[in-house]
């Protein structure tokens, strides 16, 4: 009905049950402003890129391998992951999070995975080199002739959602950003309804 479909998933709060950056903060007992920065970003009060640069600067000093290991153990929405595994070649996970922090988690999810890039020094983050923009992936997939479905909930999903053919806001972990709701085609609050809708879009 819709031609070939590509599903692009946000990671935090859509595939994972927890937000990943606050998980790192908690693990290292870091009392910094990370949690507040994340909340402010999700609510759309601080631009994603500004918040991400600040958060990466704070957490970048911790050992990359340990973070990678930690995030591989983060709790996932199992039904969403099962959908992704079943439709592996039609799915992409796109996160602003660092690739080097999430590569093990990516292996576990098992589909094409995009994240932000950095250089490393002594096993820690040295410098951010690229910050992922989801809208670029949406654009690329549309140019390749796909009908693009973007699933997400944060302010950094907004531009990608605007460009996508179909956008689904998720309120499974926390309420979606108001900006996202102002343009989304759908909003769902449980993984059961998300998966039902995804199957209807196949």
């Amino acid at each position, binding site marked *: 009905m819709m031609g070939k479909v590509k599903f692009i998933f946000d990671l935090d709060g859509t595939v994972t049950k927890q937000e990943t950056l606050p998980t790192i903060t908690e693990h290292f007992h870091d009392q910094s402003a990370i949690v507040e920065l994340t909340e402010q970003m999700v609510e759309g009060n601080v631009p994603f890129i500004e918040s991400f640069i600040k958060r990466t600067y704070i957490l970048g000093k911790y050992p990359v391998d340990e973070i990678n290991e930690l995030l591989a153990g983060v709790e996932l929405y199992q039904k969403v992951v099962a959908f992704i595994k079943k439709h592996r070649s039609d799915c992409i996970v796109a996160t602003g999070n660092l690739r080097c922090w999430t590569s093990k988690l990516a292996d576990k999810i098992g589909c094409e995975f995009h994240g932000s890039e950095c250089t490393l020094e002594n096993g820690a983050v040295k410098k951010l080199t690229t910050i992922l923009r989801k809208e670029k992936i949406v654009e690329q997939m549309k140019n390749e002739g796909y009908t693009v479905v973007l699933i997400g909930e944060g302010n950094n999903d907004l531009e990608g959602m605007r460009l996508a053919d*179909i956008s689904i806001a998720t309120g499974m972990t926390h309420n979606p950003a108001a900006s996202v*709701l*102002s*343009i*989304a*085609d*759908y*909003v*769902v*609050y*449980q993984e*059961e*309804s998300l998966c*039902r*809708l995804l*199957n*209807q*879009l*196949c």
Partner: protein
Amino acid sequence: MSTAKSVVLSCAGIGSRLGLATTKALININGRSLISWQLELLRDVEDIRVVVGFQANDVINEVLKYRRDIIFVYNHNYFETKTGTSFYLGARHANEYVLEVDGDLLIHPHDMEKLLKTEGEFIAYADIMSDDAVFVKIGEGGVVNSFSREIGDYEWTGPACIQKKKLHYTSGNVFNQLEPWLPMKGIKIRACDIDTYDDYERALKFIESWDY
């Protein structure tokens, strides 16, 4: 994909003729919101799609009190469009057969149960009751032959059930979506459409008349 029919509840409108300054899904019917009555009738339906527009957040929050597994569909252009648009948006990625239920409709529970069990396509109509009715003209065997603003045998209230593939984008009404496919099977139900304040008062009486 599930073969059961999807239900599209259209709750995007501003309810301007009613004058209660609230979208019709949220109006109070005997201590509960209208949409809570509808959700109760639809408790056994898996795929419920609630189309939201005006007061979207309020409608969503009200629905989530009763069920969290709803697919909410946005009609962002609710001010410029009508129920036909909401029906199309709600149905476009739904299951093969879609049951359209207006957000301002009170249906007798027994009749709703009967409609949910009815296979295939149909149009439901009721005795003429509301101030601002669209009428249906009925032919032999109860089939719906036409809709009319002027005159008819019964009032078009919905619900209607139709195959998703027959629906197209329109800025018009649900009955405009159905017109190209007439004649269709008709089913008489007990229902009350709430467009005006008088309709609202009639609805309150109508619900008192239910004997379960």
